[in-house]
């Protein structure tokens, strides 16, 4: 069971979030900064609920396009921008379930919402840590666990021995564990 931090602590993890939003509202080309900041969280939130990479990518794309088109309507009232994005995501997921009539309809309930948002933020942190790994470890970790490739396939793709790949996956995960602080179990 994951140990959870209270959501409030994660509300303003970007101290200049408001400035970034206002900058993007004045100049849409600055939307890229918001994208960088929130992409992982939104994707993690969606993929946890739809459990399919293709659907998660479509929905993530929908969320950011909608956010870009409606950015001028976002009003800063102290609520985090992420909450606005999660709300767009929840609606997009609900729309999709309605369309796919045979799938179970996901009713966004506030209790579940909060837990999901926190979980998404935790996952997003791990994704960011992966990108900061030394290059060889990062490539192995991404291919092995994100892309679900076998040791043999990764060894072949990178031109390394299977032993070297096992060592890199170990060191990569060890590095992540040190960064996360063992909170994932």
């Amino acid at each position, binding site marked *: 069971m994951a140990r959870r931090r209270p959501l409030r602590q994660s509300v303003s993890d970007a101290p200049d979030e408001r400035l970034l939003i206002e900058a993007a509202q*004045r*100049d*849409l*080309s600055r*939307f*890229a900064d918001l*994208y*960088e900041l929130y*992409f*992982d969280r939104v*994707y*993690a939130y969606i*993929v*946890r609920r739809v459990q399919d*990479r293709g659907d*998660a*990518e479509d929905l*993530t*794309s929908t969320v*950011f*396009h909608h956010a*870009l*088109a409606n950015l001028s309507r976002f009003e800063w009232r102290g609520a985090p921008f992420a909450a606005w994005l999660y709300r767009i995501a929840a609606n997009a997921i609900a729309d999709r379930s309605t369309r796919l009539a045979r799938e179970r309809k996901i009713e966004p309930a506030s209790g579940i919402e909060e837990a999901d948002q926190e979980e998404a933020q935790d*996952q997003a942190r*791990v*994704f960011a840590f*992966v990108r900061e790994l030394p290059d060889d470890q990062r490539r192995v*970790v*991404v291919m*092995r*666990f*994100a*892309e*679900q490739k076998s*040791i043999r396939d990764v060894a072949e793709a990178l031109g390394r021995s299977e032993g070297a790949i*096992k*060592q890199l*996956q*170990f060191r990569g*995960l*060890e590095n*992540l*564990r040190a960064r*996360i602080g*063992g909170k*994932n*179990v």
Partner: protein
Amino acid sequence: MSERENIEQLHNALEGVAAAPADLRTRELVAIARGLRNMPREDFRTKLKADLKEKAMATAAVNFIPKGFHSVTPYLVVQGASQLIEFLKQAFGAEENLRVPRPDGTIMHAQMKVGDSILELGDGGEQYPPRPANIHLYVEDTDAAYERALQAGATSIGQPEDRPYGERSGGVKDPAGNNWYIATQFGPQHIPEGLRTINPYFHPQGTDKLIEFLKNGFGAEEVGVYREPADGPIVHAKIRVGDTIVEMGEAHGPYQPMPFGLHYYVPDVDAVYRKALEAGAKSISAPADQPYGERSAGVIDPAGNQWFIATLLRMRE
């Protein structure tokens, strides 16, 4: 446990072939690995970012660029603007969008539509003396346009010929002294991808320095840079400034520097003005709201070109 044993234990646990229950550390590593199944694909993350950037630019462009304009528009400051307007109409089928005369009959400001582009011009004065320019003009029929230009009063600077770089082109000097490189791309499209009917063309001394400035000052991107020989001077470069490609080639022979004026629409005049100065431009005028509904500023780049940085002022809704 040695690192080798740890590595093997992790591998076995990941593969589900553990002989004995894994220790706590290994279980933590396996849990982290499982969480990474949900990691987004890097190429998806990058592509979506690019898509959004394109959409953002297209949406933003609607708001800060006047209708019909692109990011960069050549501004020809000449002696004899009225004659030039007539020449553009006769030679290149230009349409007159706007003409603002001064009391003495000279033209303060005019806008001509040429193909898919707008060209601005005006009579020079004490503050802005005439600065003829080089324009790369794409037309459907180079030979016909070349002939019409000569009939309208231009002088030839080069007969139309097929060029090894994929176009037929010739050149004329118009009555006001501007050089027009008239060209038609071979193939079904007479304008190469990314270019327009009218394309500003620079012949600076120090093309590398100008490109560096455009990148640092205006956030420009290199579309193509060709040197001859491979480590020699730049013979041709295409640089994207906003949504517009400007072309340039190092000054040589008859192609000597003719720095000219350009109107450059941006979302945030003050920010671009500041960055341009940091990148080595000299100020002509600090950002100020203009009575004609724009906020604008002026700078001179290291090659001597004058850039009038502007944005449409937001109208009250």
